[in-house]
Structure formats: C-alpha cells, structure tokens
C-alpha cells in the first residue's frame, strides 16, 4: 500500500520536473529559434537524468 503511494508521489514529482524542463525549453526555443538544436540536446540530457532518478526510485520502492 505505502509503496503504491510512494510510486504515485514519485510520478507526480517526475511529471512536474519533466513539465518544467519541456516548458522552459519551449520558451527558450521561442526566444531564440536558432539555438533550438542546442536547447533540445540539453533538454534531453536533463530529462534523461530526471528519468533515471525516477526509475531508480520506482525500482527501489517496488
């Protein structure tokens, strides 16, 4: 039961973080469309790091 609640909290946090990353990257691209490639790469790296954390927590909490 508690691990399910924990998994839910992890997913909420990860979703919030991914939303922040995606939203800020969109803003950045809209401001500077010529830097879209660099912003995208950095966005994917940060998203991957966040995802690794979230998955790690999900696996450890399972």
């Amino acid at each position: 039961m508690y691990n399910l609640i924990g998994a839910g909290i992890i997913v909420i946090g990860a979703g919030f973080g991914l939303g922040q990353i995606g939203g800020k990257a969109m803003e950045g691209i809209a401001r500077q469309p010529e830097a879209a490639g660099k912003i995208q790469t950095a966005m994917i790296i940060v998203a991957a790091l966040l995802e690794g954390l979230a998955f790690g927590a999900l696996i450890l909490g399972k």
Partner: protein
Amino acid sequence: MKIFQRSFKFLALVVLVFLSTTIYANTSTEDGGQVDTREEVDAYIAHHLQDSHDFSFFSYTNDEGERKHAGFPLPVILWSSEGLVTFMSSEFHHNDDGHVIVEKNGLKFAKIHSKIYELEAGATAVNFDAEHHATNASRVLDFSITKSVVGILVIGLLMFFWFSRLAKQYKNKKIPTGFGRVLEPLVIYVRDEIAKPNIGDKHYRKFTGYLLTVFFFIWLLNMVGLTPLGFNVTGQIAVTACLAIFTLIIYAFSGNKDFWVHILWMPGVPYLIRPILAVIELVGTFVIKPFSLLVRLFANITAGHTVIMALIAIMFVMKDSLGVAGATGLSFVLSVLIMFIEVLVAFLQAYIFTMLSALFIGMAVAEHDHDHEHDAHGHKIPDAQDVRGDFI
C-alpha cells in the same frame, strides 16, 4: 532480377527458420493455456520479461487436452560438478517447475523458473520446502545459448556484416549502396552530433568506434524487442550492466591527469572540504554514473514491454465486460498507439546511452590547462565546464 534474387534468399531463410520449428508437448497439463485471471496475466508478463532456454512462438491445447508449444529448442551448456554437460533444451519438454528430470553423464538436472538445478546424488525428484525453494538441488553454472544470447549473436553478426560492407564501399571511393544508405546518415549523426561536441575535436576519433557500436547495438536490439519474436535483451539487467561497465572502463582508463586531480584533490575549494569532495566524486564516478546508465536503459525497456504486454492482456481480462470483439479492438488500438511511442523510445534510449557515454568520456579526456585562469596562490579557478562536470 536482383530484387527477385534477394526476396528468394529471404524466403529461403524464413523457410529454414520455420522448418527447424518443432512442436513439442508439455507433460504437465495443469496449465490449460487460458489466460483469464489477474495472477495469470502477471505471471505471463513476468515470463515474457525473463530470459528463457528455448524459443517459443505460440502454444495451444490440442483435442486430447495436451499442451503443445511451437518453437525451437536451444542448446543448454552447463558446468556441473562433473564438468561440462550439454544437451538440447527440448529435453525439458517445456517444463518449468522441476518435474521433468534430465539425466546426462550420470547427473540429474531440473529446470525451475528458467533456472537449471543439479540434483544431489541419489535424488530422483526435486523436493521443495515451504517457501518453494529446492532442498536437494543446487544451481549450476549456466553457459547456455539462451534467447537473449541468440539475439546478441544475431545482431552482432548482422552489424558485422552491414558495417564491414559499408566500410568496403568507402574504400572503393563510391557512395554506399543498399542498406548502407540507411546506416550512413546515422553514423554521421553519431559522429557529428554526439561524439564531436561532447568529447572535443582532438580526441573524438578514438572513441567514435565504441560509441557507434553501442548506439547501433542498443538501437537494433530495442527494435528487435518490439517484434513478436519475444526478445527482451536490453531489458535484461545483466546486459545493460555490462554495457555500463564498458563505458566505466573506457572513461576510467582514458582519464587524464586533470580528471583524477579533479576527483581526488579538487582545485579551487578550501582544503578542509577537499577530502569530502573526493569521497563524493569517487562514489559519483565509479558507482552513480554507471548505475544511472544501466538503470535507465533497463527500466525504460522493461517498462515499455510491461505496458505492451498489459495492453495485450486487456483482451483476456475485459472480454467478459466488453465482449470478445470489443476487448480485442480496444487492445489492438491501444497496442498500436503505444508501439509508435516505443519505436521512438527505442531510438531515444540508444541516443541517450551513447550521449551520456560520450559526455562521461569527454569529461575524462577534457584538457583544462589552456583555458584555466589561476589566482594568486596558483589555484585553478573552475570554469563553466568544471561546474557542469560536478553536477552530472
């Protein structure tokens, strides 16, 4: 004409694979082959995610109520107490609960939950205790050619064939033909977008080979995992751990003096903090970086396979409430949609693994001396690149 020849070769290969497909019966009949309850769906998904000793395409129950499996067996290679023992996995008759005993070289073997056990001398059947652990049998060293090993070998051979052909075509100063035209832009993408910006113009050539190998290995195995063949190679934690250890070895052994100085005796911070930072950096370099690489790939692929299998299982679970046609249609639509996402994830995970490997290698070989400023005491002032390195 050429197309005709190619398709003939392909057809011949398909016929060869299906000719070697044998149908063999399961001796235990308690499994009726119906997947109805939640527990059975869970067991079915867990079984798919595991590696197995034989290739099984589908199974059905014939008129006599016997369970038949269509697929082909794979060789079992064991290092037992009496040395090397080999036999085909068909001798287990698709049994997975230790009831079928295979006798070879005077030793007895049983398969329990995809793991092979050697029975003690004199024992004729496996005894289980209350927690369903075998009491009179022990695990043997298993070097079998399992399903995952077959996947790795097939993809390895294909990659060897494709890329040696591509390399030969460049030697003749011609543009690539055939499948090489698909591979060339990907190779250039990995070189120019992953290796060069992350490792730097000076060192990238040395590591591009490894990055390309890892990229295509993960990408192709992810894609093969989405076919109905039932491979789940990059979802095996041993495989991803091995790949992460390769990256660890490469960046640990190609790290220059600056890299180790920045780990063990971080310049530009107070002396009292340096030992604490050294501990954090050592843990980060040798544990957290490879661990994040291996967990990310493993968890993503496992999660993807679980979702696809769960959507397929909708067919069985909801057939009472929606009717057979409704449940099948719902399952089909959802599976197709998630499959598109999974194709994207297959590429993205290969890209991210390669990208982070390149980033870690780049941090190990980066040369700081030229762009560092020194303060009055000769301490280096960290630049933006160092700060980035500290956060990852």
